[in-house]
């Protein structure tokens, strides 16, 4: 039987796994053929998914939850059986702000940078010219991680600083034109800002939450049922692609593939920076190594932990000013489908966690955890300011946040 899926994506480095599953023949090994539809806005990627132009999509994780809960449009249940990766985004500051914050040589301590930024934000607010930050979408982890960091540093989003949506390809222009003072965006767009000499990378999102969930592969819940065989074949192919992706000897090949016009249409050298965890923070400076800037494959990184979906829900409650509800928390958690992930990989020797939910941010050192198969050691996964997220006590967690 021949299987087929059409996949929507935005030109970002973290769309790599389905693309490489196709290019390296891992999908073909599963008798699966893939077609891709590239777009320029998440709204369109989502529309194509909802109206069946595509079967699956590279999507910002909070948007899958917002769509399921009916935020901004009538509710339509989505399902995510695979996390496309962890972190890989950064906060880039405009040149003026970067100078005032002393950025450029190394990635600073997030708390110390926050303290400095707070003073500047206060001055600007009092002068009637709030600092403005761009994020790629209201329902993106970029927005939530930026807000998490600001709030933990005593900077109140929407009061002390303004946060606005800017499409990734226009962030460099917006920084250059002074429309925004900084932005949280995925690669290669931070590096594009650096190379254009309009911004300095100040912080990696991996510094805010060491193992933060990033893009996901989303299906309509009904499509996932109808195309279960295809979805599971794709999951197996993407696990193989991930194994290929993290091996250093393949980095250049993969950067060259992703750089092609039909995929990212960008300079391979810029794409290499995220792949190799080596970022040039400021134009003309040598690259700085930051481990796990973009985290792939290892530690069952693609496993859709229900607790990750629920952390995103907690942030949606926090920043949309919603009333927390147990029922919504369950609905949000049910968007992530570890059962499908397990079913796809069972008996193949891949690492499968024993649990489907965990306390996020509770590990300060590598720790072995229970596994259904294989052995799993989870690395440090803390939030920079300390507290962990227990999905059984979301309300208490929300109350404890600033």
């Amino acid at each position, binding site marked *: 039987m021949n299987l087929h899926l059409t996949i929507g994506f935005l030109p970002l480095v973290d769309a790599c796994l389905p693309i490489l599953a196709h290019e390296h023949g891992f999908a073909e090994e599963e008798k699966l053929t893939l077609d891709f539809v590239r777009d320029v806005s998440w*709204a369109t990627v989502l*529309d*194509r998914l909802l*109206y*069946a132009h595509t079967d699956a999509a590279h999507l910002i994780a909070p948007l899958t939850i917002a769509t399921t809960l009916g935020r*901004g*449009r009538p509710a339509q249940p989505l399902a995510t059986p695979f996390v496309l990766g962890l972190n890989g985004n950064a906060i880039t500051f405009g040149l003026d702000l970067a100078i005032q914050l002393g950025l450029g040589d190394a990635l600073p301590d997030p708390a110390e940078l926050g303290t400095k930024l707070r003073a500047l934000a206060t001055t600007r607010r009092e002068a009637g010219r709030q600092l403005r930050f761009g994020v790629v979408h209201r329902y993106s982890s970029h927005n939530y991680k930026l807000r998490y960091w600001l709030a933990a540093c005593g900077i109140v989003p929407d009061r002390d600083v303004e946060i606005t*949506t800017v*499409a990734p390809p226009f962030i460099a222009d917006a920084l250059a034109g002074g429309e925004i003072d900084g932005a949280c965006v995925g690669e290669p767009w931070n590096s594009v800002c650096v190379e254009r000499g309009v911004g300095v990378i100040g912080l990696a999102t991996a510094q805010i939450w060491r193992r933060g969930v990033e893009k996901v592969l989303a299906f309509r819940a009904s499509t996932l049922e109808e195309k279960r065989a295809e979805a599971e074949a794709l999951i197996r192919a993407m696990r193989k692609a991930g194994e290929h992706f993290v091996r250093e000897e393949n980095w250049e090949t993969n950067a*060259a593939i992703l750089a092609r016009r039909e995929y990212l249409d960008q300079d391979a050298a810029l794409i290499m920076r995220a792949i190799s965890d080596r970022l040039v923070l400021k134009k003309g400076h040598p690259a700085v190594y930051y481990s796990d800037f973009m985290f792939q494959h290892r530690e069952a990184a693609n496993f859709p932990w229900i607790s990750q979906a629920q952390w995103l829900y907690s942030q949606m409650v926090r920043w949309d000013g919603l009333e927390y509800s147990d029922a919504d928390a369950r609905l949000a958690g049910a968007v992530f489908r570890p059962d499908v992930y397990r079913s796809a990989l069972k008996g193949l020797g891949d690492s499968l966690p024993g649990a489907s939910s965990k306390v996020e941010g509770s590990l300060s050192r590598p720790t072995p955890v229970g596994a259904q198969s294989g052995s799993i050691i989870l690395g440090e996964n803390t939030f920079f300011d300390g507290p962990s997220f227990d999905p059984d006590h979301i309300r208490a967690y929300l109350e404890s946040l600033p």
Partner: protein
Amino acid sequence: MRIAIVDESTVRASIIEDGLAELVDCEIFVLTERKALLAQLAKLEPDVVLIDLGNPSRDVLEEYFAVSRALSKPIAMFVDESDDDAIGASIDAGVSAYVVDGLSASRIRPLMDLAVRRFNAFARLEADLAEAKGKLADREMIDRAKRILMDSRGLSEPEAYGELRRKAMSSSRKIAQIAEALVTAHELMGAGGGGGAVDGAKT
């Protein structure tokens, strides 16, 4: 009803505008510039915003509709659950619609139908244009291939064309494909003088 058409393609925008002109009681505004888009919209206070799916400003626009205090009336994506086929047709055509709160679906549907027809008409025009351009490019390629054969083998022009056609027929390919292969081979041998024609980035 005040309708704003947001489209970076000025040609398509004016085709849509023309199509909607037959609607009575409608004022139509066309916004083709990304710069200051939100400020322009705030000033226009439209009841309906039509935007093409390929527009990179869509996420910015949705955010604006969701949170802006500059809007006196909330605007949301037009998703009429009683008529999912119509929405599907608009997505197929490549247009999405945002509609001010309280506007009835019966007023929006004729507008959407027109917009969809116009978008589809534009897509056909574009396809025709692409085909015409393709044909022109094919003819140029065939001319270059003929020239190579004429120069290297001393053939007349009809003979050179005959050679290309014979090869195309025997290998069940298009003449333009044979011509392209010949021109590429010629350049690879260093005789084309182009040198840089080989795309080394694509491995």
